[in-house]
C-alpha cells in the first residue's frame, strides 16, 4: 500500500542507550526522537504539546542534558544515552522526584509532568540544593497550565532534600493552606 515517498526508501537503523538499556531501532530517517520514541519504540511517556520547541512538554535527557525531543533527530542520537520518564522508576520504587510530585499534587492532569520530572532531575544532578529561584530558572522552559508551578517547586525541593538524605516532609501550609 505504501507508495514511494520522497527521500530514502529504507529506514535508518541506530543503536543507542535508552534508559540504561542498549536499544536498536529502525525508523524513517527524518523522524525526531520524540516520534521515534512514541511511534517506533511505543514509549508514550514522552508527551508533546507543539512540536516546535515552544512548550517544553517533550523534554527528556540526552547524555544527561535536558533537551526538546521534538527538535532532536532520531539519527542524531546514535550512540548516545537517552533517558525518558519510563526510566525513572525502578523495581525499588519511584524516583524521589516522582514520589514528591505524587505527594504534593504537582501532577494535576499529568501531561506536562514527564518533561518537568526530567528537567528537574537534570537540575538536581548538578545542584543538590537549588534555591527557589534556581528551580524557577531551570524550569522556565516547561509550561504547565494546571498547577501554577507552585506544587512543582515544592515537590522539587522536597525531592532534593530527600536525595540529600534528609528526612524531609511537606510543609503543612503546602498541603493545607495558610492558617
Amino acid at each position: 500500500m505504501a507508495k514511494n515517498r520522497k527521500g530514502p526508501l529504507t529506514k535508518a537503523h541506530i543503536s543507542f542507550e535508552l534508559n540504561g538499556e542498549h536499544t536498536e531501532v529502525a525508523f524513517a530517517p527524518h523522524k525526531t526522537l520524540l516520534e521515534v520514541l512514541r511511534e517506533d519504540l511505543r514509549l508514550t511517556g514522552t508527551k508533546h504539546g507543539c512540536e516546535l520547541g515552544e512548550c517544553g512538554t517533550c523534554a527528556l535527557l540526552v547524555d544527561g542534558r535536558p533537551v526538546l525531543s521534538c527538535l532532536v533527530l532520531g539519527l542524531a542520537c546514535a550512540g548516545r544515552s537517552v533517558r525518558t520518564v519510563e526510566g525513572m522508576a525502578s523495581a525499588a520504587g519511584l524516583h524521589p522526584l516522582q514520589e514528591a510530585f505524587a505527594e504534593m499534587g504537582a501532577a494535576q492532569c499529568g501531561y506536562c509532568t514527564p518533561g518537568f520530572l526530567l528537567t528537574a532531575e537534570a537540575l538536581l544532578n548538578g545542584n543538590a540544593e537549588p534555591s527557589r529561584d534556581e528551580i524557577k530558572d531551570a524550569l522556565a522552559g516547561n509550561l504547565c497550565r494546571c498547577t501554577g508551578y507552585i506544587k512543582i517547586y515544592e515537590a522539587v525541593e522536597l525531592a532534593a532534600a530527600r536525595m540529600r538524605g534528609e528526612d524531609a516532609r511537606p510543609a503543612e501550609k503546602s498541603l493545607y493552606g495558610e492558617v
Partner: protein
Amino acid sequence: MAKSDGNGLRVVGRAQRKVDATPKVTGETLFADDLSFPQMVYCKTLRSPHAHARIIRIDTSRAEKEAGVLGVLTGTDLPIPFGILPVSQDEHALALDTVRFIGDPVAAVAAVSEEIAGEAIHLIDVEYEQLREITSVEDALANPEPRIHDYGDSGNLHKLISLEFGTVADGFDAAHLVREDLFFYEGSTHLPIEQHAAVAMYSADHRLTLWSSTQTPHYVHIALEKVLEMPASRIRVIACPNGGGFGGKSDPFSHEIVVSKLAMMTGRPVKATLTREEVFYCHRGRHPTHMWVRTGVTKDGHITAMHFRTALDGGGYGSYGVASTYYTGALQTVTYQVDRYKFEGARAFTNKPPCGPKRGHGTPQPRFALEVQMDKIAEQLKLDPADMRLKHLVPADSLTANYLRVGSMGLAECINKVVTGSNWKERFRRLPHGRGVGIACSSYISGAGLPIYWNNMPHSGVQLQCDRSGGVTVFCGSTDIGQGSDSVLAYIVAEVLGVDPFEIRVVTADTDLTPVDLGSYSSRVTLMSGNAALQAAERARELIAPEVAKQLDVPTSRLVFAESRVFDGENPETGTTFAEAVQAAEAAVGTIGTVGSYTPPASAGRYRGSGVGPSPAYSYSAAVVEVHVEPDSGIVRVPKVWIAHDIGQCINPTTVMGQVEGSVYMGLGEALMEEMAYRANRRVVHKCPSMLEYKSPTTLEMCEVETYLVTDPDPNGPFGAKEVGQGPLLPIMPAVANAVYDAVGVRVDEVPITPEKVLTALKRKANGKEGGGRYGPTHFPEIPWPDPTRVPPPWEGGDGKAIRPSDEDAKAAAVAQPERQH
C-alpha cells in the same frame, strides 16, 4: 443526604495523593494520542482558508487516488447538524455549504500514515465564493447581511436577552451615587498542554468505540448518535484522562465525529491528533465581551440598583454561547446585596473560531467589571474597598433578586483572611509610587441547576460494587481532567465504607460501563458525582451493616466502618474485616452492588432564562494582589497574591490548593498577557496560533501565592464540599486592575492589562486628560434591546415568575428548548 460532621472524618479533609498520582508520574497514564491499535490509520482535516465563504464545489478525486489513502470525507457525508446546546445545532462535522472561520473543517482524509493524510488533504480541490466577513460585534450589528447563520434573534445577532428584577429606575432614584462604567474583556483560550486527540474503532459486529480527550463523553455520545444515525447503545465513548481541559474539551468536536465515520467507512481504527494550531481553531474559549454597567449605591456602598449590559463576540458557531451570554448576567447578585437588577445581554456571530466555556464560563468578564467598579465606588465614597464589600454581603440562606438560592456563604471570612494576611490596612494607598495592592471577590457555581438538554433524570450516577475480596469498585461517568475527580469518588466511598481509598478501583467516563455523569464542566463533579457516590456508598453500608451487626451481636448504630474493618464503636476489638463483612452480606442478600444518583434541587426562578445561574451551592473567593508597575514602561509584575476560598469542606485540601494556585495562574495570564488576537487586515485570521505567541505565563511570571481555605460546609455538598476549580480564577483579573490603580493611579478598564495600555493611561494622566488617566472602551455597541422580561424580586412579593408570562415561560427553566426526552 450530605453529612458535614467535620470531626469523625478519616479520609475526607486529609491531605493525600490522588489515586492516579503514580501512573501520572511514571508516564503510564494513557492519553488519547498515546493509544494505538493494530492496523490503525490516521486522519487529517482540510480546513477553510477563508473566514466566510460558500463552498461551490469540492473535488476529492485526486486525494482518493493517492496511494495510502483509505477514505475521504466531505460535508455531504455527514449532513446532520449538531451542537452542544439543543438551541444551537449549527455545526457540521465538515462544512456542508458554508465556512464560517479560518480553520473551519471542510474535508478529511484517512491514510496509512499521518504524513500521507497530511499531504492528501492538499490534493482536495475546493472552490469557494467568498462572502463578506463579520469581524466584530459592531460589524455584526452594522451588517445583518450576509447572515452567518440562518437562525438567531436577528441578522447576525445570535441571542438577545433582557431581564429586569424590580424597577432599576427606582433604585437609581434612591441612590446617593450612580456610576456608569465601560469595560472590555478580551477573549482568551484554554491552551491545554495536550492537543485534542480521538481514536475510533468500528467492529465487524457494528459497534463503534471512540476514545477521546473530552470532558463530556455523554454529550459526545449523544452527538455521535445523532450525526451517525446509529443507536447510542451501539456506540461506546471513552473519555481518556484529559491533558488539561479548562472547558476547551467540552463540546462535541468535528474530529470526534470524523474519525468515527472514517472508522466505519474503512473498517480500520482511525486516529486524529490535532496540531497546536488546530487546537486554537477548536477554541470555545472566553468570549470577548463589551460591558456597560450602571450601579447606584447609598453612602455606605449598598447597591440600590444595578443595570448591566454585555455584548459578546461569539465567533462562528453557537457552542455554549447562549448559556455563556446568560452567565454574563447571572452571578452579579450573589456576592453583594443588589436590590434591583437589570441585565441585557447580546451575542453576535462573527467569522472567528467559536467561543464557548472557559474556566469561569461567562462570569470572569462581568466579575471583572463589577469588582473594578466597586473599587471606583469605594474610592468615591471614601470607603475602604474591603470594608465596603464586607458590609453588604449577601446573607447565607437567602434568595437574590434574580432568584438564586445562596446556601453557605463564607465570603466575609475570605475577605478577612486576605486583608489580614496581606497586611492590607497598612498597605492599601500607602505603598510608594509604582507599588500597589488591590482587592476583589467572586463567587461561582458548584454545578448548574439544570442539564444542557431538557430531561428530568439525575445529573450524576454511580454504581458501586463490593466483592468478596473486600474490593470496592466505583463506576461513574465523570471525567478526570486533572482536577482529581476520580480521587474524589474514591475518597468519599473510602470515608463511608472505612476502606483505604487506594484500594478502591475507580472506573470512569466510559459510556458502556459507567452510569451517566453530565461531564466535567460548570464545577459540578465534586458536588454531584460526590453526592451520587456518597449515596451509593451509604446504601452499601446499609446492606452490609445488618449482617455484621448480627454476627457481632451489636446494634447497627454502633458499627463503625474504618481501617478496612467493621467494628463495634464502643468495643473496637469486636469486629470483622471489611472483606468478611462483605462476604457475610453477600451470603445473606446476594451480590453487593448499589447505585447512587444526584439531582440538584429545583430552581427558585421560574422565568425564561432562569435556568442559568442556579446551583446547589456557591463558592466564594477573595484575593489581594500586589503589583509592581514600572512607570516608564507600563510593565506590570505581580510578586504575590493572597487568596482565600470558601470551599465548604475540603475533600482533599492538597488538590484544593492545586486548583486555587492553578486558578491564580490562569487568572494572571488573562489579567496580563493572554489574548486571542486576530488580524483584521488579513481576513480575520488568528494572529498567532502558537504556544510561542499565545502568552501563557512561565515560572518566571508566576507569583507567590498564599492560600487560605475557608471551610463553611454547605448542606448541599457531599460532606459540605463546594467547588474550587473555577471560582478562585475570578477575583484575580479585577484585583490586578485595582492594584495597578493603587500603584500608579491609572485605570485600565479592560484585560489583558498590557504595558502599552498602562503606559497610555499614564501619559493621559500626565497630560491631564480623561479624569486622571484611564485606558478602556469609550462606548458600548448600539444594540436594539427587546423589552425586558420583568420579574419582581423576592422582597417585592415576587414568586420567581415573570409578570407577563409569555408562552415560552412554560418551559421556564431551561436554557434551551427541549429537543429530546430521555
